[in-house]
């Protein structure tokens, strides 16, 4: 077990290294530097600014400096937020995104999985159709449209929920639901598909034939084995949550990392872009590693012989 975890972590490191390098190259190649402000700056000032941020050194040297800094855990300095380091900024933003993402993930699992199971159990009947319609709706509409609908219904017409900002637990409700909508639908479809597969397998029918029928037992078997494929997709699910958070955080004015990333790209704030990209990459890699490990625990038949 421990070896597996360590191995996965070791495999993740070169990936991270490549991600950092790729992002560095991409950002530097993009036209438009960080100091193209509203009024044109006289040359002396631009030169001063560039020297201050090491932008006047040749690219390979900048790269080496950057990698060294990364090794120390220093993610650099923001050009736009002049008195703050990237570490500071992300330390503030990360917990917010974590809470939002965590809530959304919990909602998605708590709603999506049972919905899919219900659909599978009642396949062909109205539960199936309704559940499948809802879930297909969920993955067929862009996130910002869903957000708009929720704001309109709950915030403006009914006036029971706040439509933006992050001041109290009440403020978390609408954003979390908006973010959870697509993943919940996706999970519902997935759970239904894998549950159906299990149900049609021989050993379930054997169990039923042996008299172990009755929804409880079948359900238990189905749930346990359906969870395996569902856990497999926790990786891509995390990815969906991360990208969904860009839009949700923007719409609801939530101070999370997604919002920072978009603003940083618009501002060509190099280090902030790289810092956020790396954090996201780390998150995804962690999610995938976790999935590998959980996979092993849940289904002994699938132990990877490494």
């Amino acid at each position: 077990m421990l070896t597996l975890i360590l191995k996965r972590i070791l495999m993740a490191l070169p990936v991270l290294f490549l991600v950092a390098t790729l992002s560095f190259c991409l950002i530097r190649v993009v036209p438009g530097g960080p100091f193209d402000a509203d009024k044109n700056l006289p040359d002396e000032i631009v030169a001063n600014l560039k020297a201050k941020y090491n932008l006047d050194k040749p690219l390979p040297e900048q790269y080496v400096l950057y990698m060294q800094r990364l090794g120390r855990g220093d993610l650099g300095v923001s050009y736009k937020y002049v008195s703050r380091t990237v570490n500071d900024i992300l330390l503030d933003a990360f917990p917010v995104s974590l809470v939002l993402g965590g809530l959304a993930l919990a909602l998605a699992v708590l709603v999506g999985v049972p919905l899919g199971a219900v659909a599978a159990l009642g396949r062909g009947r109205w539960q199936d159709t309704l559940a499948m319609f809802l879930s297909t709706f969920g993955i067929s509409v862009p996130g910002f449209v869903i957000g708009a609908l929720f704001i309109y219904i709950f915030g403006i017409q009914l006036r029971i929920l706040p439509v933006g900002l992050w001041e109290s637990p009440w403020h978390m409700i609408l954003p979390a639901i908006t973010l959870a909508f697509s993943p919940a639908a996706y999970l519902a479809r997935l759970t239904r598909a894998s549950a159906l597969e299990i149900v049609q397998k021989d050993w379930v029918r054997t169990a039923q034939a042996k008299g172990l029928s009755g929804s409880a037992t079948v359900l238990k078997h189905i749930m346990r084995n359906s969870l395996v494929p569902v856990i497999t997709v926790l990786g891509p699910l995390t990815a969906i949550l991360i990208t969904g958070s860009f839009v949700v955080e923007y719409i609801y004015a939530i101070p999370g990392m997604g919002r920072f990333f978009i603003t940083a790209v618009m501002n060509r704030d190099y280090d902030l872009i790289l810092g956020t990209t790396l954090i996201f990459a780390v998150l995804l890699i962690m999610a995938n590693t976790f999935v590998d490990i959980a996979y092993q625990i849940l289904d002994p038949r699938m132990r990877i012989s490494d």
Partner: protein
Amino acid sequence: MASQGSFKYVAGRLAKIPQAVLALTLIGLICLVAIASALQLPLSPYAYDQTSTLYLAGPSAQHWMGTDELGRDLCARVIYGAQLSIAIGLTTAGVAFVIGTVYGAIAGYCGGKIDTLMMRGVDLAYSLPDLLVMILIGVLIGRGTFGILLALGLVSWMGTARLTRAQFLQLKNEEFVEAARAQGQDHLSIIWKHLFPNALGPIIVALTFTVPSAILSESTLSFIGLGLSPPACSWGTLASDGWRSLRAHPHLIFFPSLFIFATVLSFNFLGDGLRDALDPRTRLSKLK
């Protein structure tokens, strides 16, 4: 096995699934509209970029879907948008198909170290969130059809690659492949003539799901401001432009979103249907 995957067989099974048939019909209709629009057939009395002084009017007899901030007829723009959105969806699927299958085929067929290395590459591609890559590319190449297609294609190929590789890994040890090898056929023709056609089924299903995903991603890109340049208008551009007017002029977001929804829904149903049709274990009588 070969006969079970044949086109007639699959089509026959597909025809038994009502949602899939409906979906296919709808997609067909939309594609017709898209093609007609591309051929510049006069589907609407207005041009998509024709401005007037009737700003922000609601739906009426004269303008079925109302007008936008510059007085352009929304219906004409939605029709034009069909062309763009469908093209974006299908092209992305095409790019994903080409890159993904070639990549996955090589990995699956070679196996061993090459396979491990290539799958690490896929892992690398997976560890960057989609939208992040798309934004970076959008900013790098600039707005415009090529940039968007490249961005969308680059985030869509991994699923196809994994699927192709899994299929190849499984299929290459089948008897008919051994037989072909015994006959002295070389690698390329084995891949092309034997492995590929049999792997095709699940790949097509996966691609059917790539199309709606691309359409949705494109609309999110537009929302962030990295979509197509005006006056070009895909449904995604129209929907995200209309977002700001939700309260005052809901028709601006309603109609494009409706079309996105219908198209994406149809492709999803079609994909579901195809998957069920292709899977020999699914008993169709149970599918209602």
